[in-house]
């Protein structure tokens, strides 16, 4: 009962992305403290605060991304720290998805935080990064210990992030629900781990290709007969994972939490958690528990079917866009579980590919909603979205784009991902899953299209329509005179946009004024809206100097759209191969 293991430099190098994130997370906290106070504006509300911290966080994500890519190229793919953490391509690939989601979430944040007057940004971004770190750890875990560690790291960070809007009861409620239920589920997972540990005598997974760090896999290969202890352990483990990927019947927290949490957080967690949990799920079941696959396959199959059917069905009558997307993410979890059932290199590769595609689409969709959500969590109902196209055409366009992608329309990524997954189902000998998946997709199409119809084809409600119909001319004028409200059209979202937006007072005129007209319209309208119901909120939002960070939202949306499009059209060319290779190395 003794061992010696000295961590080498190579070990640290193998977890470089995590290190970068952890470091930057701490740095963010530090910088938050050091940021100067400007005049009477409190430190947390300063313009620098809204810019420096997210920038830093983003830098951290980019750094981690860079580290990941470096590892792809030069890494040895070996396990670090005595077989506790993997640095194989599978993990790295999962990092890509997680980091993309984190990056997009961060990009969506400043505008949102500013609009909702949410301060304490140091914590926000630090937690953001920590959650990402936890996810990466979960995805890369090659031991139940690391797995648990990662799971809890991400969960703890997300509990807080979900409840971050302290002035919104829904947000608090979301945090609380998530906290209680997730801990509850973790306990089951943990108990399962304990039982498996009892059955196999180890908590390490063990690698497929080497016997360097023997683990569960090796034990099961040697003793393929399953004991009661092991079976019940597997069952409880399934529960833990199913909870995290929100498979039915463990999905109930999902809509509530997604709805209550701040939209950028939802954008991040809906993708990141799912990616991390699924990769871990896949690794544990498809790779580690492969010798006893016959025992768990039926359960996962049932979960997959239930989730596909149930998730799509439940989404049908949802009228709140956030909840709808939450249910849709349940449905997508169902599709993803097909990959787990099918297993094999194709199944895993399909999961990996799907995750990356899904990351961009879902993050984009929630990101678009983040521009609509109000402090009291309203603004995302179908009623609110009605006629959005006439008020904010670009936003509506983006949202529709992502929804169509999620619905599985080519040429967006969703289609390619689904295609590959269904292909895997057929190849893995599960034509019934292919058929169920295809048919439930039709249901999915309905609710996505219904939402789009509300935005594009139905006029806004009377009161809204009157107050929000703004002529372009008015918008141009307002961009010039209202001054502070100079926001930018998405295509000038670079430094130029920032320059334009930070200039206050009569800056946006002439050509620039015309360019911003598109975007400025709704804002002007907001300012002119007399609607008493939301008056308080609007006034509150107005307290801050406009959406001076709206351009970040456009940037995020643009990036997400670009990613979704590229993944659907150009990238599968090599990405699928990559996923295939990655899957083989999980």
């Amino acid at each position, binding site marked *: 009962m003794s061992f010696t293991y000295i961590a080498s430099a190579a070990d640290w190098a193998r977890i470089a992305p995590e290190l970068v994130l952890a470091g930057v997370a701490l740095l963010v906290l530090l910088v938050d403290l050091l940021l100067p106070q400007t005049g009477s504006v409190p430190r947390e509300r300063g313009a620098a605060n809204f810019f420096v911290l997210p920038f830093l966080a983003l830098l951290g994500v980019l750094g981690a991304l860079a580290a990941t890519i470096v590892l792809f190229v030069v890494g040895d793919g070996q396990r670090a720290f005595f077989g506790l953490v993997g640095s194989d391509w599978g993990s790295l690939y999962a990092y890509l998805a997680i980091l993309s989601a984190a990056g997009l979430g961060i990009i969506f944040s400043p505008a949102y935080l500013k609009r909702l007057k949410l301060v304490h940004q140091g914590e926000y971004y630090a937690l953001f990064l920590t959650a990402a770190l936890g996810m990466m750890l979960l995805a890369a875990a090659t031991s139940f210990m690391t797995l648990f560690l990662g799971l809890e790291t991400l969960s703890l960070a997300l509990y807080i992030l979900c409840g971050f809007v302290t002035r919104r009861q829904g947000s608090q409620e979301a945090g609380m629900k998530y906290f209680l239920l997730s801990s509850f589920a973790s306990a089951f997972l943990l108990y399962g781990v304990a039982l498996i540990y009892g059955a196999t005598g180890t908590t390490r997974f063990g690698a497929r290709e080497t016997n360097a760090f023997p683990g569960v896999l090796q034990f099961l290969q040697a003793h393929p007969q399953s004991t009661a202890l092991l079976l019940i352990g597997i069952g409880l483990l399934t529960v833990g994972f199913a909870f995290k990927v929100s498979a039915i019947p463990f999905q109930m927290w999902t809509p509530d939490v997604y709805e209550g949490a701040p939209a950028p957080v939802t954008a991040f967690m809906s993708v990141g958690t799912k990616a991390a949990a699924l990769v871990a799920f896949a690794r544990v079941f498809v790779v580690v528990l492969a010798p006893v696959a016959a025992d768990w396959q039926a359960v996962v199959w049932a979960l997959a079917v239930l989730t596909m059917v149930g998730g799509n069905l439940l989404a049908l009558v949802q009228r709140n866009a956030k909840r709808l997307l939450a249910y849709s993410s349940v449905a997508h979890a169902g599709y993803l579980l097909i990959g787990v059932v099918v297993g094999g290199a194709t199944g895993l590769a399909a999961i990996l590919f799907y995750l990356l595609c899904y990351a961009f689409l879902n993050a984009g969709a929630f990101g678009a909603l983040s521009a609509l959500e109000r402090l009291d969590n309203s603004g995302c109902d179908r009623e609110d979205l009605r006629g959005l*196209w006439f008020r904010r*055409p670009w936003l509506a366009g983006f949202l529709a784009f992502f929804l*169509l992608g999620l619905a599985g*329309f*080519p*040429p967006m990524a969703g*289609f390619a991902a689904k*295609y*590959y997954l*269904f*292909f895997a189902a*057929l*190849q893995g000998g599960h*034509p019934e899953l*292919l*058929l169920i998946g*295809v*048919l439930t*997709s*039709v249901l999915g*199409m*309905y609710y996505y*299209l*219904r939402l*789009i*119809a509300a935005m*594009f*084809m*139905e006029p806004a409600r009377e009161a809204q329509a009157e107050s929000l119909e703004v002529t*372009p001319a008015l918008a141009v004028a307002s961009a010039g005179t209202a001054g502070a409200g100079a926001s930018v059209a998405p295509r000038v979202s670079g430094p130029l946009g920032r320059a334009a937006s930070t200039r206050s007072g009569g800056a946006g005129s002439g050509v620039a004024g*015309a360019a911003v007209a598109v975007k400025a319209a709704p804002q002007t309208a907001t300012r002119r809206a007399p609607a008493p119901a939301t008056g308080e909120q609007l006034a509150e939002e107005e307290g801050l100097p406009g959406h001076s960070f709206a351009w970040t939202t456009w940037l995020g949306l643009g990036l997400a759209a670009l990613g979704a499009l590229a993944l659907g059209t150009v990238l*599968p*060319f090599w990405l*699928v*191969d990559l996923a*295939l290779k990655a899957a083989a190395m999980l």
Partner: protein
Amino acid sequence: MFPMLSTIIFLPLLGGIVVLLLPRERVNVIRWTALGVAWLDLLLALGVMLAYAQPHPTAVTVGTVPVVVGEASPTVASVTFLLQEHLSWLPALGINYSLGVDGVSVLLMTLTTLLTVVCIAASFRVEQKLRTYLAFMLLLESGLLGVFLATNLFLFYVFWELMLIPAYFLVGGWGGSRRVYAAIKFVLYTAVGSFLMLAGIIALGYYYRTGGHYTLDLTTILNSSTHLNSTVQLWLFLAFAAAFAVKVPLVPFHSWLPDAYSEAPTPVTAMLAGAMAKAGAYGFLRYCLTLFPDAAHRLAPLISTLAVIGILYCALLALVQSDMKRLLAYSSISHLGVITLGVFALNAQGMASQQGIDGAVLQMVNHGITITALFLIVGFLEARTGTRRLEDYGGVARRLPIMASVLMIACLSSLGLPGLNSFAGEFLALLGVFRNNALFGVLGTLVVVPAAWYMIRLVQHAMMGVRPAGGPVVAAERKGGLPDLDIGEFLVLLPLLVLIFYIGVHPLPLTFFVEH
């Protein structure tokens, strides 16, 4: 080699993006840009058509379709794609970017580009969200062209779905009062079919694997020595047919169509009926027939039965419609039944009939031309009076002599008057059907009677007879709001009219394309 086909497909897409980026106030610039793009595409398509008509020694024969020529001598006709483009996309799954034209697709490609020009020109009155509208129109064109030109099943499916998006937005965004219902119904109906086809495509690629290598390239598949057993063929055929049957549509999968056609803005309806419906028939011909010959043979009676039921049933329905667009919608289903019938005119050995196929393709083109003209005229009428109900009209030919004449010509073409275009197609198609199955031939041919009836009813109720005592038409007339076709509208219709006559008098070039 210059990627001609890609240019043709993606030019409208790019044009659409350009249109979106134009300043909103420059309405005329926007319109003419869109029209210019459409024209350019048409010219390119015509260029390809001309090139195709030349003798082509470099043609690559890539497979065979059993076709019977003459009663006694079953022969095998080859499928030859020209101007092939090939780009590896996802070779592991057999997914490639492959394009090519054969005689059928060259015709449909040109038809699509022509109809786009016409429909965009007819859309000059659209004011609301003009840029987006035109961009969607052009996107729709891209999707359609892709469907006709793709030679890889995956790519085909991509375009197949791609055309659904603009269609959805166009129906739902610019349509009538029940547009949302119509648009969603349209997409859902189509989606059920297409998703089943997707399953079929996945399975097809799976079955046509050599070693670990999958393929979805039509050329490879047609040349493959793999022969699917008949059960597999049957299921795959059904999966594919589901998509096509909804799109064409075959009764009873047509419920979306009257709603979509009547709610959509008229130029869009014209596009849907003129070009998009052909995609279904094209799919039957290109995929169902060639990929699954055994299943096609077994199921041809079923499909033909549905087609015949559709032909007669929808003709009956067209007789009693009072909404002009609904009338045309049902007539459209009825006529497309003839096309389907022609495609599935298989003989006892399961060989396709050359007349049937020639006629079907000819009829695809003809129907595209005719129905577009009809819908556009109805649209022009509606724009003047605000009503589509036949009861509201009457005796307006005296105010609208040119429009009445044009409507008359289009209706005559639609009812299959000998000497006009539809006759050529219907005659050949039904001849092919009759030859191989007299019963279907007789029942299919019977449609000419109700077709004449409802088309004449349309013309007479709309244009002739007694002027009603009141109502929107009379009100419009009193206000002087009932001008005859203006020069722009006439020019929009002119190419269609010319083709109605030309193809009727001399369909030889078209059958030439189909057979070469």
